């Protein structure tokens, strides 16, 4: 079957934004292709030399592939080792604000949730980040709800400039910006961006994002591409697992990643696999993803994108996180807090979701080393971006 529309490479129309390509996709048909895939399709996909072809992509996320999970995992582990070696990069998320103008049914920061709201001052952010640097972190992810009023891009840039001396890499997970906004961040020394689509199923998307700028599906979908155009090097994408059918989310995420690898070719794609956790608001996942499907999704993504960073956060339980080392994951957070000021004063404000792996960064690093991998604290340098 053909997934990429034939116009993709037409002169004058290339590069198209992912939202243009996305409109031509039949998500239901892709899911059906996964459900129909045969053991032979799976075998061919696993035996692919290089990235799996578009035609075989759905087979990776199929029930048939679930029955060959061990073979899939072996292939994922081998590809990851060849590309990244025996290393796991560590990073820390740091929440700058839990203010948000969106109404999202699953999120603790949703504006209609009555929680303690807080936005860190510049001094508070410096103090909070200092604690993370003291723990050994050199890669930082600045996170916030979406509120231009409480946390305009100029403020994020100011924070990044202030924190730059102590961190090798600073990425942001904030409201989607225009290309100009991403340029402002790039000039401030930010080298990565994360924008989760949450769900690639437009119907589900509309049902869970009911108010605010986040209701604009395509605007969000093209965010990281704008960031790539603006010069950011690490482009993070992902679906929030539990909202929609995971096969659709996984196939769409893989296609998004492949699009970015062509259009934002100077940037590295990072794919996260956040599963919904308990949060204020009491959302119950409509389509929960169990551990077996989760592992299949992760390993299959490695075959679809051999060069992508695959990221797992502290949302996942200790036992599973430890087992994932060596399977395909290349980046992990550790010792995370999901509320602004949470590292300095844990009870200072409400978190976005509950953390499951509560071990210290050092303890996580020791487990990584014990499993025969090097915990990598620094894999970037300020001098790439400092001008």
């Amino acid at each position: 079957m053909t997934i990429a529309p034939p116009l993709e490479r037409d002169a004058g129309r290339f590069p198209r934004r992912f939202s243009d390509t996305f409109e031509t996709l039949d998500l239901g048909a892709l899911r059906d292709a996964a459900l129909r895939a045969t053991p032979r399709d799976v075998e061919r996909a696993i035996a692919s030399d290089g990235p799996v072809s578009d035609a075989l992509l759905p087979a990776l996320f199929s029930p048939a592939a679930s029955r060959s999970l061990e073979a899939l995992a072996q292939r994922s582990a081998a590809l990851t080792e060849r590309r990244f070696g025996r290393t796991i990069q560590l990073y820390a998320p740091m929440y700058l604000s839990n203010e948000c103008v969106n109404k999202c049914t699953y999120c603790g920061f949703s504006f209609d949730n009555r929680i303690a709201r807080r936005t860190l001052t510049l001094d508070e952010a410096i103090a909070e980040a200092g604690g993370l640097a003291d723990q050994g972190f050199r890669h930082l992810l600045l996170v916030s709800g979406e509120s231009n009023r409480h946390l305009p891009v100029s403020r994020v840039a100011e924070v990044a400039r202030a924190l730059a001396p102590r961190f090798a890499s600073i990425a942001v997970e904030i409201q989607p910006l225009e290309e100009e906004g991403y340029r402002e961040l790039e000039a401030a020394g930010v080298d990565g961006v994360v924008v989760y689509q949450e769900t690639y199923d437009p119907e589900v998307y509309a049902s869970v994002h009911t108010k605010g700028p986040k209701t604009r599906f395509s605007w969000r979908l093209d965010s990281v591409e704008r960031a790539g155009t603006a010069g950011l090097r690490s482009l993070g994408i992902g679906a929030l697992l539990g909202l929609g059918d995971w096969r659709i989310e996984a196939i769409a995420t893989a296609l998004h990643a492949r699009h970015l690898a062509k259009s934002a070719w100077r940037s590295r794609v990072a794919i996260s696999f956040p599963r919904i956790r308990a949060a204020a608001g009491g959302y119950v996942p409509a389509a929960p993803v169990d551990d077996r499907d989760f592992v299949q999704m992760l390993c299959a993504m490695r075959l679809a994108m051999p060069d992508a960073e695959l990221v797992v956060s502290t949302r996942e339980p200790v036992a599973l996180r430890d087992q994932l080392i060596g399977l395909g994951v290349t980046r992990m957070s550790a010792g995370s807090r999901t509320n602004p000021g949470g590292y300095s004063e844990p009870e200072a404000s409400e978190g976005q979701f509950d953390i499951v792996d509560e071990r210290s960064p050092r303890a996580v690093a020791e487990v990584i080393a014990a499993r025969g991998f090097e915990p990598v604290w620094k894999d970037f340098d300020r001098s790439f971006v400092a001008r």
Partner: protein
Amino acid sequence: MSQPEPLVIAGVAFGSRLFLGTGKFPSPEVMARAAEASRTEMVTVALRRVDLDRPDDPTLAALDRSKYRLLPNTSGARDAEEAIRLAKLARAAAGTEWIKLEVTPEPNYLLPDPVETLRAAETLVADGFIVLPYIHADPVLAKRLEDVGCATVMPLAAPIGSNRGLRTRDLVGIIIEQANVPVVVDAGLGMPSHAAEAIELGADAVLVNTAIAIADDPVRMADAFRLAVDAAIAAREAGPGGESRIARASSPLTGFLDPTPATDPNG
């Protein structure tokens, strides 16, 4: 057996023709033991991975600096300006003028940008650096880099980390034929036989990282690469008989038509 001739780069002699990359190892300790086993005299470190000004940096702390020349590399640089900035940082922090120039704007295959590499090389050489550029197996580019004063050229055998062997054999052969500076085959050598092939072809040295780092036993594999490189150098010095499509029997079948006096039964 006579000692093989040392390799000389920018006036410095190297007893080993195997250089080692330091990424992807399971730990700095294993990396250091592999370096020991390889008997290399030059190791390259990615500037993005280390803090040159921190003596406790795990990678640097594991290496006995008296045994190895440290060759910082600019891996991750997307253009000439970034590479130059990193090289200057390395010189300031590590006190070395040697730099392995890598300009790799595309993060997946990490293929070198020839235009930016040449630009950066010109500036760095003029600024007093000893420049060892990582390049495609492009003979014209190799000559251009030699012309601007690079100390070596380092053409790739295959994409970094691919372990696919000397896929660029014919073009590397042309580079070797034309070069006035040492040619170091870098990237893609996956097995000791690949390294031996490059040396037999005439390369002055090879640089290996992934093949050793991700082996089940990196120390043993480092030793295997050492043996292969040494074997290929010995073979080169022994004077290979060369290939022929026509059989050359050791006991000719038609010798009787042209008898020598000693074996002529009627003589």
